[in-house]
């Protein structure tokens, strides 16, 4: 068996802050959802077991990578440090959040925005998925400049 590509990384792999919601593959971040084999509904966070479409009895939900680019549905920031269990950086700089609409999946996904402030954003602009660390280390998906 060939060694996984991951073993070729230099340095330790960042630890994901949550298992199974996103993957960083060769430095490229992907959100992981599940898609119903029967009705094609996409679920994020990944849903297992039953499809959420009430008119579908599908139970075959397979992992799928979501589109990496979408348009901003809305955005905001946290001017004050959010409370625990969020780990706020010290000194604190406002966390920027964006809800991004993925056209193919017909879904809006919330995430932190990397290296941008609310002044850099507007509704309808394109963002691309990336990832970045929380202040206490683990990695989370983030929206960033395409």
């Amino acid at each position: 068996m060939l060694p996984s590509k991951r073993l070729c990384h230099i340095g330790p792999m960042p630890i994901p802050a949550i298992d199974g919601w996103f993957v960083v593959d060769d430095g490229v971040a992907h959100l992981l959802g599940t898609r119903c084999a029967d009705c094609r509904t996409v679920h994020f966070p990944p849903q297992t077991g039953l499809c959420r479409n009430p008119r579908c009895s599908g139970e075959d939900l397979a992992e799928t990578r979501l589109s990496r680019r979408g348009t901003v549905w809305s955005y905001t920031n946290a001017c004050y440090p959010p409370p625990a269990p969020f780990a706020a950086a010290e000194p604190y700089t406002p966390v920027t959040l964006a809800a991004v609409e993925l056209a193919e999946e017909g879904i809006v996904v919330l995430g932190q925005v990397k290296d941008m402030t609310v002044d850099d954003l507007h509704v309808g602009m394109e963002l691309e998925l990336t990832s970045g660390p929380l202040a206490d280390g683990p990695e989370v998906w983030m929206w960033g400049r395409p």
Partner: protein
Amino acid sequence: MGQAMSVVVAGAGMHPWGKWGRPFVGYGVAAARAALRDAGLEWTDVQFLVGADTIRNGYPGFVAGATFAQALGWTGARIASCYAACASGAQALDIARTRILAGLCDVALVVGADSTPKGFFTPVGGDRPDDPDWLRFRLLGATNPAYFALYARRRMALYGSTPEDFAAVKVKNALAGSLNPNARYRATVTAEQVLASPMVADPLRLMDICATSDGGAAVVLVSPEYARRRGLDATVRIAAISTVTPSFPNTVLELPCFATDSTAAVPPPERTFRASIAHAAYEEAGLDPADLSFAEVYDLSTALELDWIEDVGLAPPGEADKLLRAGDTALGGRIPINPSGGLASFGEAIPAQALAQVCELTWQLRGTAGARQVVNARAGLAANQGLFGHGSAIIATV
């Protein structure tokens, strides 16, 4: 719903909202006694008590019905307790109404009260990586105001609402609240003060966002026949209680979710969730938005009041700002919104809030709202939404 299927609001009572720092039970009992006094009934007349739960006050909060019944003194009355986040009061009311309509009791007391910690709501303690309400804080730092701000920014982009419009909502509600002895904030404010308050979640500033409060509210429901027999004030009737859930796919990002439902397979429903909440209430009451004299809507933020005005059908999408600017939604206007002063003047006491809205409906419809009185109030609607998909809309009529 015809009159035969309605129940009477015989009494309404509140413990003033504030940051009193005392156990929630005391606020609930004070509100319950006030509502019973208002109805002209005794606690020993009550056959069924429903408590709206609070999740931040230990075990007694999870069994609020029993907690209030024990505090008032065990009488053998049947009880129920329920939790539906901000919609808890509406669900509690619906449970009481249903038992009366089923003929299983004649007199029901519905009570909600909360004692809240300082600052914005944080998740209940402990590591719970399977709980989206914990994860949204852990992974994103997404507080409640962050979600309100997403809606506000979206509204600005879609409809051209401005921070000045949002400030005007606060000015209007603070003026109404200054006339309400149960409100926590009694001072009037200026638009300049709102616009100079610190930014919390862009574009919302501190004075755009409702605080968390202590408070208690209670309502006595009775059957029309019982009201006649005891000679109670039967002016106000509950014409509808809507507790609908969203329809798939819900395309609005709701607290505490990370994403919307997907429209890949099923197109969005005809109405958004918030619009569907009010729609179900109108259907049940056999009324239209045009029949309303006023409305209490859940102004968690100033911007959200504008969304609600459209969601409950009082303005087409994007046109609530016009009503606001014309003074239509102020006291003395064509269709006053939040004549109580709303959450802007109260702050949120979760299990009590929907019941506080019903108290305001009751006093307005009786014509006893004093300086806040809406002229010739005939029908009022109270709308709110609890996280995790809890709808709440109540219509009361004379």
